[in-house]
């Protein structure tokens, strides 16, 4: 007996008119915010009094903003895995690293044996593989998606906490591979701890952006972030996204309703990994190189803290969480430390407190506000479902 006749999915779609209106609204808000920030940094800041300028430079430097957007891109990817599909991934740094090294391989003079130039900013005489940033973004994303499928296929059948461990192991193996990869059967694949640098500049039609160019990079990263937001929002309302939410809420019920568990989970993994790869490529171009020791476990945890703090499953929450924590990590905490140390003449090492901050954020959020700062309404209901209900059978979920 087989009931595999496909029902017409179009007839069940929620009304399209309402959606497009709300989607136009976010796009407008997003563009306005981006333009306002850009105008502030390029035109208004130079006219500010000197004191105000140094404050802005110390507390909100433009490069920190660009870096924060790289974090947002990766965090939105993790949000698809953790927030939408409810699969805990503790090794997201692996995708970040693979994306970064893709940029290192395809956008630098590292492979001196070859001389390939595709729409690149570097002069034709320079050896190595030089492919345009816009192409490498997709290559990096696709390679990561492929690895997401490889790691997901055999393990997604496991219980959620086992899955977390497998991803954790994967997140350990990949960076170690890059550290030790200077001699794979005599071939230097990753240049070991020295890493690969410099990475080519981003090219836009007619010019090549210098590493310190703020405006263009800002708009490119805004564009990438907007693409990720758009993808997250569209996927969520689509058939696949609803299947993810269903799996997150109740796997058994979802499979009874005809959601193919493996395929749906795998696609969450692949899409999340794709975003991680894009983040990795963007990060490599932002820093101007890839260095193996940058890719460690704490990146996975910071990304997770961003998703959890902001609100699992809520794109805007994750974005706010990512911007906030990225800012604290890169500028906020050191700047605050300098302020306190200079005022009270102390020598407290504030950046070392980020362990406490991120760990504490995870624990306190889980204890007191599981749904995050900007909660997603559906998730809030689920996360507190068990609080009121009478105790059920202990061992079973």
């Amino acid at each position, binding site marked *: *007996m*087989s009931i595999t006749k496909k029902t017409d999915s179009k007839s069940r779609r929620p009304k399209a008119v309402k959606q497009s209106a709300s989607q136009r609204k976010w796009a407008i808000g997003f563009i306005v915010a981006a333009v306002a920030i850009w105008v502030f940094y390029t035109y208004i800041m130079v006219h500010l009094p000197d004191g105000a300028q140094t404050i802005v430079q110390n507390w909100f430097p433009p490069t920190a903003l660009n870096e924060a957007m790289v974090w947002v891109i990766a965090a939105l990817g993790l949000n698809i895995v*953790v927030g939408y599909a*409810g699969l*805990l991934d*503790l090794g997201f740094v692996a995708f970040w690293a693979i994306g970064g090294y893709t940029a290192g391989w395809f956008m630098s003079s590292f492979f001196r044996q070859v001389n390939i130039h595709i729409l690149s900013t570097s002069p034709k005489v320079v050896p190595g593989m030089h492919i345009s940033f816009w192409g490498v973004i997709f290559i990096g994303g696709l390679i990561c998606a492929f690895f997401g499928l490889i*790691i997901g296929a*055999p*393990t997604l059948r*496991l*219980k*959620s*906490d*086992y899955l*977390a*461990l*497998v991803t*954790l*192991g*994967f997140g*350990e*193996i990949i960076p*170690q*591979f890059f*550290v*030790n990869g200077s001699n794979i059967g005599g071939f230097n694949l990753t240049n070991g701890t020295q890493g690969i640098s410099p990475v080519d500049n981003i090219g836009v039609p007619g010019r090549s952006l210098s590493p310190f160019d703020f405006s263009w990079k800002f708009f490119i990263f805004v564009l990438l972030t907007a693409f990720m937001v758009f993808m997250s929002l569209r996927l969520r309302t689509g058939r696949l996204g609803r299947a993810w939410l269903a799996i997150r809420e109740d*796997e*058994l019920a979802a499979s009874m309703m005809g959601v193919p568990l493996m395929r749906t989970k795998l696609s969450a993994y692949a899409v999340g990994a794709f975003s991680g790869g894009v983040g990795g490529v963007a990060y490599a171009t932002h820093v101007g190189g890839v260095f193996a020791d940058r890719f460690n*476990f704490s990146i996975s*945890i910071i990304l*997770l*803290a961003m998703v*959890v703090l902001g609100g699992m499953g809520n794109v805007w929450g994750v974005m706010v969480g990512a911007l906030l924590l990225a800012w604290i990590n890169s500028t906020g905490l050191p700047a605050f430390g300098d302020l306190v140390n200079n005022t009270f003449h102390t020598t407290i090492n504030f950046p*070392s*407190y980020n*362990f*406490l901050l*991120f*760990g*504490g*954020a*995870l*624990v306190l959020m*889980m*204890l007191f506000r*599981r749904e995050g700062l900007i909660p997603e309404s559906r998730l809030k209901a*689920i*996360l507190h479902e*068990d*609080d009121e209900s009478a*105790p*059920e*059978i*202990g*061992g*079973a*979920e």
Partner: protein
Amino acid sequence: MSILSKGYQARQDRRRYLERTLGTLAALGILYWLGINFAKSPSQFFQASLIGLSNGVLYALIALGYTLVYGIIELINFAHGDLFMLGTVFSANFISVWFGKTHTGIAAFGIFAACLVAVMTFGASINVGIERFAYRRLRRAPKLAPLITAVGMSFILQFVGLHWNGSGQKTWNSILPSGQIKIDNVTIPYTTIISVIITVPLLILMSWIVSRTRQGKAMRATAQDQDAARLMGINVNRTISFTFALGGALAGAAGLIFQQTRGLTSYNLGYQLGLIAFTSAVMGGIGNLQGAVLGALLIGLIQGLNDGLPIGLGQQWSQTVVFSILILLMAFKPTGLLGKTVTEKV
């Protein structure tokens, strides 16, 4: 029987056949690798195995903490490895700073014994504190919540370690005798012997507590069914606290042994070792005490052989080997070597 289930059956059979073939091939490959290494240099082979086994004993102590906690509340206690790290820092400070002992002697053994008691109490109380403060409130929450909390706790403990021990690696003098026994070309340091002498009774004590005492019976009952256990008059909260205390005490003891045999402490040590220990627990079948010890010895042995044999991947790939084993185990045999097959209830 319908066509559908027949196809399913065939697929399952093919899968099982493939797994068995691959497993046999892998086993043959490993045997071949061991064989050529043994032929090349038997003394190096034994030396590597010895180092591996002495590491394995240490992993066993940590792995038991994971397996105990997982067995009773199905939580992977990520903070456990960092608890071990705090144990190493505590021991180093206890012996070398507070008591100022840097050399071996009769008094040193007394201090060592006192430190063992102190560090076990220390580990137990921190673990119980974490459970009381965080995990207990989340016992009914969806599984993601306690898991993320545990990760956060691990970070908090690392922060404590970072501020207690400093950001770099610290080296300490061991107060254990530093000599060694030499049999042909294989050397056995006294520290290895002492660590085995301490660990084995601890493991036996552990096994006795769980299988023979009243409290152990309560633990097993709680692990099976919390509500039924509660109906039988078992204080479930206290039993879970007791389990955490046992795990914490073992992690503390492991911390002392590690610090005294290796003579170093570092704040980020717990994460790596914790993961290796967890892999051991999974290898033996998580929730199974004997399994955890067996898995730990095997993982230690594998690691020792990989690091020490003349033909091997070498120390730089050590972690990769262990974590690859973890992933392969999860993919093909998530129940581990001694674990029983549990049907997923979801």
